[in-house]
Structures are given as structure tokens and as C-alpha cells.
């Protein structure tokens, strides 16, 4: 099973499988049925973060420095939690600007600066090459362990010439694979769907392999975790490995490594590639926010058990190989091969994505700008440039992998896996200030970012890279202890005398301090160019709704020239896409802004932003994006949004007030109408006695010979009518009194029962004449209340009178009741009439409302009253501290008016 040939067959078979998956993914993408349109596949592709360094190195790190390996995964967990804020913004920017790599991102942010892009590409190349070398080393080592076990691997690598070195051939095979899949598209689109599908598959394979060897260790080699940890407890020294003391640098080292992993997760070129560039749908970030951390947790679950089991069992001298040597020592056959494939997938996944990301940077940020500037690009030939770009990228892929191999062959063996990984992390972290500060602070400028990167990179090289060379024997290691030229404060591991820190935290602190310090400091004291200001605004406001770059283009680019440019560089198909829906005959007219922007984006997607800008500028001649326009759009839109919000609030308030006003107006109209009717009625009422007074007075004046008895009769009528007139006027005045506060009452202690009886007597005569049957039910002996006797009697009489009017036509009945209720007395007057509808009950107490009933009464042939009784009565009762209301009559079935008055305090 473990023969050289079988292993080779398995390894190449696995690569062929990847090939098939990637080809299938690309085919589906071309058909428009993408297989990577799933948030789960997106989250799995991010797991390219877990390289051979995780697969083999984590166990090694756990065996040496305890829980510190966890930091490499806790940092990204924190970063992913921020995905809905930070990464979403990066994705939004990348989509709007057609970003192809992190170098392109930083270059575009700082005014599409070609220099800055080249700088980032160079740093990435230098910083990441060791990381690629590490993957090659892991593949070769694991292969050697597998083949040579139980002999220790290693030594035989050194002597062999490169053609006998398997890692050289692994690098070559991968180069072919990556060239086939990373650079397939002729329009050099920045996305690689097939590759993403293959990476997601690899993530599953490495997870399954690691979980398998973990479960084997815990449940087959030992009887479960309890057994394993019991054995660890018996072995002196092992339990201490699990504490914070085992972490280099202690608590400070813990924080330093956490920050390092956090930053590197966002800035490593391959992470930027899968997180941002290959993201097909912003909403996928949601699932990735928790699924990717879950993946990290799962793949780390068995690291400590494997490390402990390896240390317990003395399975092999090198902890980096425990995952292989544990099952090998147990004599299992299949599992080591599965582990080898897991490690292979971890390593190849990283190399594929990293190489594609780096080759894109090299071609777009280093080679193309150089060729454009020196004018060495082909001047004619349709789509010629696409061929050039792809050619450059293919060469770059080959070169990068050869560089990685070279590093591995020359330096690689001196480092453990972990060391190389963290050195690369620290290099990538140098991009963080330019990237993150640039995304949130509009003031950060190109000069600051450039100087910051150079400074940070220099400090990184001095504190990590060069000491690494020294330790691998390339340089005299003496300067590590004494400092260069005897300058102690320049010692790489104790810069400015800062001693006692672990080397990564130390390097991170100094390099980031210099980097961010220069970026901020220089930016504060230097100016931005117009394009920089525009780009800064577009980046910092990327999440701004309604931000549309196209609207910012002055529309004066000649269409024909634009078409020719695209044709030349991207080919006919891409040109057709940009000009979709446009008429080819219009080539003399200026292109609309949207088309010019689309053209620049298409070029940026293929060549990077800096080159695209140079090309577009060659056609547009000096027309830049209008900064004032964009700033004013951004400002006005944010102002407008705020204004809109306020307006909405105001309009809601206005709506509410409007509704209230409408109601009030309705009431006023109603009152007005009632008032008119009332005035008409009152005038009529007043005119009737006046007319008769006048008529009789005229008779008396004109007929002096009238007999005495006639004369007396007429005078009687005049007097009676005058009295009626003054009563009427008195009632109208009464109505106004309670409201104007001029109602004068003379409250005294009185007996409501006696008063009620008195009232009944007063109306009995009249009611009997009308045929109304009057019942009295006074249930209390004595009902002491405080009130004005005259006014209260007026109220009682009024209520009885009213009830008489509204009682049933055929057999009118009225009932007066008086009873104690809680701490007061209730006087009720019921009738057997039609009653009053519930919603009308309050309105009968409104002034003038009575009139309607009066009309009703008139129709029914009942005598009319002044119509002001109830409002006046309620005013009086309220003045005496009581209440007056209507309810359904309990005994007679009509309306029931209830007057309630509080009991008078005892004398």
C-alpha cells in the first residue's frame, strides 16, 4: 500500500480528481449555472486558510508550545465575526472597482497608484514565498515519512539533485494544474469558479482526514478522551503543556499572536482572493460568519489529543509528523494514506490559490504597468493583450512555484513549519494599516501608505526575516546577540532594548507601529491628488446607498476610440459586452458616462486598476473623475437621507394633526349647524309671545271702547306672555352661565328625597293633563346632600318634563326613583319611550342637540320646550360635585337619566 508507485498514483489520481471538479465548475459557470452560488461552498473555500501548516504544524506547535496554536484560529474567528461590517465593505468595493487582488485594492484606494500596487505585490512575493516553500516541504516530508517509516526522514533530501527531488516535481505538476485553471479565461476575468469549487472540495477532504486520524487516536489507540487524559495526568511535565505558561511570551505573546492571526486572515493574498475577489454574492458572508469558525473549531478539536498521544507514545521524534507516525506506529495501513491525501489537499489548496493571487499581482501590478510605460505592448491586433496578460500570468505562476521550490531547497530545512508560517503572517499584516485605515479614513493618502508599507516591511525584514537567515546559517548569527556594528539597541529580537517579548509580538508591535505611524503621520501633513480624493471617498463611503460611479463621468470620451481600445486589449467578446445595447454607428459621438465607467471596469478586471486608468486616460485625455461632483453627491445624499428621515417624521406628525383638525372642524360645523337651528328656534320662540303681546297691545290702543272684561283678559294675556318671554330669556342666560363661570349657586344641606317629592308634585298636574302616568319609587327615608334647592328642583322638574315628552305615545309612563349608591344618592328618571342609542347618549348633553329631538317631538305632536334643559341641568349638577348621564331604563325600557350626588357629611 505504501510503495512509492502506489503513493504517486494516489497523489496524481487525487490531483486529477481536483482537475475534474475544477473543469466541471468552470463548465457550469460558462453555462450560467454556477455551482459556487452557495454560502456553504463560500465558507468552505475560505477554509483554504488551513494549510499543511495547520494539518501537520498545529500538532507540532501544540506539542511544543501548548495552546498557542489555537490563536492562529481564534484571530480569524474574530475577523469573521466582523465580516458583516468589514468584509462586506471590502466585497462591495471590490465589486464596484473590479478589484483583482489585495495589491490592486490598495493601489485603487490610493489614487490607482501603480507604484503602491507594485510595492504591495513585491512585499507579498517576498513574504509569501517561504509559505509556499513550507507547503512543498510538508508534501515532501509527509511522503518521505510514509515511504521510509520507521526510518526517520529528512537527510536524504539534501544530497539529491533537483530532478530527483519530489518536491520539484510536485511544484511542476501544480504549476501545470494552476496554469490550466487559474488562467483559462481569455478575457482574463478575475474570478475562477472552477478553482473555488475544487478548493471547497479540498477543504472537506482535509477536514475528514484530520478528524479520522483524531478519532483513531482517541478511540482506537486509547479508550476515549478520559483514558488519554488520565495517562497524561500520570506523566510528569505533560499537563503543564496545557497551561498559558507554555505559550511563548505568556499573556502578552497570547495577545500578540491573536492580533497577528486576525490581521493576516484579512490580508494574506489567498484569503483576500477567496474572501473578496471570488465572492459571488454578498449574502454568503452571513453563513460564513459562523460556518467558517465552526470549521476551524472542528479541525482543531483533535490537535491536542494527537499531540499528547504522540508525546506519550514516543511515536516519532518530529511532532510535525505525529498525524502520520501515530497510525503508522499502530500498524494501520489505509489511514496513513488518507492522512497523506488530507495533507496533500491542504498544501495544494493553499498553493493553488496563493499562486493565482500572486500571479495576478505580478502580472497586473508589476509587469503590465512596466510594459505599458515602456510602450512594449503590441500596438495592433484584436484582443492581442488578452493573450499577453495570460502569457505573463502563466510565466508568473511557474516563476512563483520555482521560487517557492528554490526557497525550500535552500533555506527551508532550517525552519520548523510553524516558524515559516508566522513570518509570512507578519509580512502580510503589513498590508493591514493601508487596507483597513484606508477603508475608514478618507484622509489617508498615497505617500503615507507607501512610506508606511516600506517602513513596516523594513522593520519586519530586520526583526524576523534576516534573523531567520542568520539562524539557518546564511549569515553570522553574532549580530543577533550584540547588534549590528555593536549597536545593542538595534538587536533584531530586542529592538530599542525591548526584551522579554516573543519574537512575533515584538516584530508585530514595532513593524505595525512604524507602518501605521507613518501612514497617519505623513497623511496628516501631505496632500492628496484629485484622483486620490475621489477614490478615497468612493472607498470610505462604499456602503453608502445610491453611490453610483457611472454618474460621475463627464460624457466626453469618443465612442470609437473607446471601442478600439477595448477591442485591442480585451478582444471582441468583452467589447461587445461593454457596448451591449449601443449602436455601432454612433462611434463619432461621445460615449455616455456609464459606458466609459464600464469600459474602465472591464479593463480593471483584466489588468488592474492602475493600468486601466493609464489606458483610459490615453483615450479620455486629461478628463478625470470629477471630485467635486462625487463629494457633492456623497454629501448631498447623506444630507438628503437625513432630511428625508426628518421630513418623513414631520409628515407623519402633520398627518396626525391633520386628522385631528378634520375631526375638530367636523365638530365645529356640526355645532355651527346646530347653533343656526337653535337661533332659528329661539327667534321663533321669542317671536311667538312678542307677536301676541304686540297684537293685544295694538287692539287695546286702537279700540278704546272695548268692554272691561275683554280689556282685562287681553291685559292678562300680555302679562302672561311677557312672563313667558322673560323665562325664556332667563333660560338662555342660564345656559351661558356655567361655562362663563357666572353661575351663582347657594349650596346648603338639603334632603333630596323631600326635594324629589316636591318636584313630582309640581309637575303632577301638567303630566296628568297630558295623560302621563307618573310613578314614584323613593327607597330612602332621608337623603342628605349639599345643593342649591331652587336649582336642583329645576333639574328634577326638567328631567320629569323631558321624560314625559319622550315617553311612549299610546300609554306614556314615567318613573322617578331615588336610591342610595355607595357614598351618594342616585335619582333616576325613566320613561317607556324609544330610548337613546348608545352613541347618542353623550350628545344629548350638548348644547342645541336637543333641538333634533324637539323636531322629533314636534312631529309626534308633543309640546316643545326651550330645548336647553339637559345641558343646563348637567352644568348645575356638575357644579354641585355630582354627575348626570343617560343609560338604558331598567324598569320601563326607554331612556333613563341618572343624577348622582354625593352624600352630605354628617352634621
Amino acid at each position, binding site marked *: 500500500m505504501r510503495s512509492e508507485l502506489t503513493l504517486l498514483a494516489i497523489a496524481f489520481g487525487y490531483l486529477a480528481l481536483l482537475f475534474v471538479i475544477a473543469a466541471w465548475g468552470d463548465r457550469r459557470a460558462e453555462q450560467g449555472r454556477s455551482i459556487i452560488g452557495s454560502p456553504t461552498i463560500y465558507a468552505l473555500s475560505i477554509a483554504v486558510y488551513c494549510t499543511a501548516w495547520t494539518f501537520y504544524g498545529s500538532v507540532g506547535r501544540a506539542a511544543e508550545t*501548548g*495552546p498557542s496554536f*489555537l490563536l492562529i484560529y*481564534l484571530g480569524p*474567528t*474574530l475577523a469573521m*465575526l*466582523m465580516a*458583516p*461590517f468589514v468584509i*462586506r465593505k471590502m466585497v462591495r468595493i471590490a465589486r464596484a472597482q473590479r478589484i483583482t487582488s489585495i495589491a490592486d485594492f490598495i493601489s485603487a484606494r490610493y489614487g490607482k497608484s501603480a507604484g503602491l500596487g507594485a510595492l504591495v505585490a513585491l512585499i507579498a512575493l517576498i513574504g509569501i514565498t517561504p509559505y509556499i516553500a513550507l507547503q512543498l516541504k510538508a508534501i515532501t516530508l509527509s511522503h518521505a515519512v510514509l515511504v521510509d517509516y520507521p526510518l526517520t526522514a529528512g537527510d536524504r533530501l539534501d544530497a539529491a539533485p533537483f530532478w530527483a527531488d519530489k518536491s520539484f516535481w510536485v511544484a511542476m505538476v501544480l504549476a501545470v494544474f494552476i496554469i490550466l485553471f487559474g488562467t483559462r479565461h481569455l478575457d482574463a476575468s478575475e474570478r475562477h469558479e472552477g478553482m473555488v469549487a475544487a478548493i471547497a472540495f479540498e477543504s472537506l477532504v482535509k477536514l475528514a482526514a484530520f478528524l479520522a486520524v483524531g478519532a483513531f487516536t482517541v478511540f482506537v489507540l486509547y479508550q476515549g478522551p478520559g483514558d488519554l487524559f488520565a495517562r497524561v495526568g500520570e506523566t510528569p511535565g505533560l499537563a503543564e503543556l*496545557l*497551561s*498559558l505558561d507554555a505559550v511563548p511570551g505568556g*499573556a502578552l505573546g*497570547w*495577545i500578540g499572536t*491573536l492580533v497577528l492571526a486576525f490581521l493576516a486572515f484579512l490580508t494574506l493574498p489567498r484569503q483576500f482572493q477567496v474572501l473578496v475577489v471570488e465572492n459571488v454574492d*454578498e*449574502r454568503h458572508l*452571513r*453563513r460564513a*460568519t*459562523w*460556518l467558517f*469558525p*465552526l470549521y476551524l*473549531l472542528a479541525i482543531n*478539536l483533535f490537535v*491536542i489529543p494527537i499531540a499528547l498521544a504522540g508525546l506519550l507514545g514516543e511515536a516519532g521524534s518530529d511532532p510535525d509528523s505525529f498525524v502520520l507516525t501515530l497510525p503508522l506506529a499502530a500498524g494501520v495501513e489505509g489511514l496513513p494514506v488518507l492522512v497523506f491525501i488530507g495533507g496533500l489537499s491542504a498544501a495544494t489548496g493553499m498553493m493553488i490559490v496563493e499562486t493565482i493571487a500572486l500571479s495576478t499581482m505580478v502580472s497586473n501590478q508589476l509587469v503590465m504597468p512596466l510594459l505599458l510605460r515602456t510602450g512594449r505592448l503590441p500596438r495592433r491586433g484584436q484582443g492581442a493583450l488578452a493573450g499577453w496578460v495570460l502569457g505573463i500570468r502563466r510565466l508568473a505562476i511557474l516563476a512563483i512555484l520555482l521560487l517557492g521550490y528554490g526557497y525550500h531547497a535552500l533555506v527551508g530545512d532550517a525552519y520548523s513549519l510553524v516558524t515559516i508560517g508566522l513570518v509570512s503572517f507578519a509580512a502580510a499584516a503589513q498590508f493591514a494599516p493601508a487596507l483597513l485605515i484606508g477603508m475608514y479614513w478618507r484622509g489617508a493618502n498615497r505617500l503615507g501608505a507607501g512610506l508606511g508599507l516600506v517602513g513596516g516591511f523594513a522593520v519586519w525584514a530586520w526583526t524576523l526575516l534576516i534573523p531567520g537567515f542568520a539562524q539557518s546559517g546564511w549569515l553570522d548569527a553574532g549580530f543577533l546577540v550584540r547588534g549590528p556594528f555593536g549597536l545593542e539597541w538595534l538587536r533584531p529580537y530586542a529592538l530599542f532594548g525591548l526584551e522579554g517579548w516573543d519574537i512575533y509580538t515584538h516584530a508585530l508591535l514595532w513593524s505595525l507601529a512604524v507602518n501605521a505611524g507613518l501612514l497617519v503621520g505623513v497623511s496628516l501633513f501631505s496632500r492628496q491628488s484629485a484622483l486620490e480624493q475621489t477614490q478615497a471617498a468612493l472607498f470610505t463611503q462604499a456602503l453608502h446607498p445610491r453611490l453610483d460611479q457611472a454618474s460621475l463621468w463627464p460624457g466626453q470620451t469618443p465612442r470609437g476610440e473607446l471601442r478600439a481600445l477595448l477591442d485591442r486589449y480585451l478582444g471582441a467578446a468583452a467589447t461587445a459586452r461593454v457596448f451591449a445595447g449601443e449602436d455601432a454607428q454612433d462611434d463619432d459621438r461621445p460615449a455616455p458616462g456609464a459606458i466609459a465607467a464600464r469600459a474602465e471596469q472591464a479593463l480593471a478586471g483584466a489588468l488592474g486598476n492602475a493600468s486601466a486608468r493609464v489606458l483610459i486616460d490615453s483615450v479620455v485625455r486629461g478628463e478625470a473623475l470629477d471630485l467635486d461632483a462625487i463629494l457633492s453627491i456623497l454629501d448631498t445624499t447623506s444630507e438628503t437621507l437625513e432630511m428625508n428621515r426628518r421630513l418623513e417624521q414631520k409628515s407623519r406628525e402633520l398627518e396626525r394633526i391633520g386628522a385631528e383638525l378634520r375631526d375638530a372642524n367636523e365638530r365645529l360645523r356640526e355645532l355651527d349647524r346646530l347653533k343656526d337651528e337653535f337661533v332659528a328656534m329661539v327667534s321663533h320662540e321669542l317671536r311667538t309671545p312678542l307677536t301676541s303681546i304686540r297684537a293685544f297691545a295694538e287692539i287695546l290702543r286702537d279700540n278704546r271702547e272695548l268692554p272691561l272684561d275683554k280689556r282685562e283678559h287681553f291685559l292678562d294675556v300680555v302679562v302672561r306672555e311677557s312672563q313667558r318671554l322673560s323665562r325664556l330669556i332667563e333660560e338662555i342666560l342660564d345656559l351661558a352661565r356655567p361655562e362663563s363661570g357666572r353661575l351663582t349657586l347657594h349650596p346648603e344641606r338639603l334632603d333630596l328625597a323631600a326635594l324629589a317629592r316636591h318636584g313630582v308634585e309640581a309637575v303632577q298636574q301638567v303630566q296628568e293633563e297630558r295623560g302621563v302616568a307618573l310613578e314614584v319609587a323613593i327607597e330612602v327615608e332621608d337623603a342628605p346632600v349639599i345643593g342649591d334647592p331652587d336649582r336642583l328642583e329645576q333639574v328634577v322638574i326638567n328631567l320629569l318634563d323631558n321624560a314625559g315628552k319622550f315617553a311612549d305615545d299610546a300609554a306614556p309612563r314615567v318613573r322617578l326613583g331615588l336610591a342610595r349608591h355607595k357614598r351618594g344618592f342616585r335619582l333616576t328618571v325613566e320613561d317607556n319611550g324609544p330610548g337613546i342609542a348608545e352613541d347618542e347618549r353623550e350628545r344629548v348633553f350638548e348644547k342645541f342637540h336637543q333641538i333634533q329631538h324637539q323636531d322629533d317631538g314636534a312631529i309626534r305632536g308633543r309640546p316643545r320646550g326651550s330645548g336647553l334643559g339637559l345641558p343646563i341641568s348637567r352644568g348645575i349638577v356638575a357644579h354641585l360635585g355630582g354627575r348626570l348621564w343617560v343609560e338604558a331604563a331598567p324598569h320601563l325600557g326607554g331612556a333613563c337619566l341618572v343624577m348622582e350626588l354625593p352624600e352630605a357629611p354628617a352634621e
Partner: protein
Amino acid sequence: MISPRRKERLVALIVLATALFTPPLLLVAERAGAALPLYVFLAWAGVIALAAWLTEGGRGE
């Protein structure tokens, strides 16, 4: 895409996760006698569960 309330909760979760993963609390957990990796794994799983609940729950919002 995300409601303001959910954003606030997510920010709170980030703060919580940072606190759980860094020394003051880490040292407390270690002093309390728990094996450090065990504590980290439990805290980690808790944070992931909360993040899943926050981002996946209530898609209809």
C-alpha cells in the same frame, strides 16, 4: 441587509468574543482550575453558536 438591532447584537458579540479570548478572562479561567484548551473550546463553541443564531435566525426580518 442587516437590521440595526442585529448589528448592535453582533457588535456586542464581537466584544464578548474578544473578552473571552484574551488574558484577563483567560487567566481567571485558568486560575479557576479549568484546563485552558477546554475553556477556549467551550467559549469558542459558544461564540459560534451565538453567531449562527444571530446571522441565520429570523431570515424573514
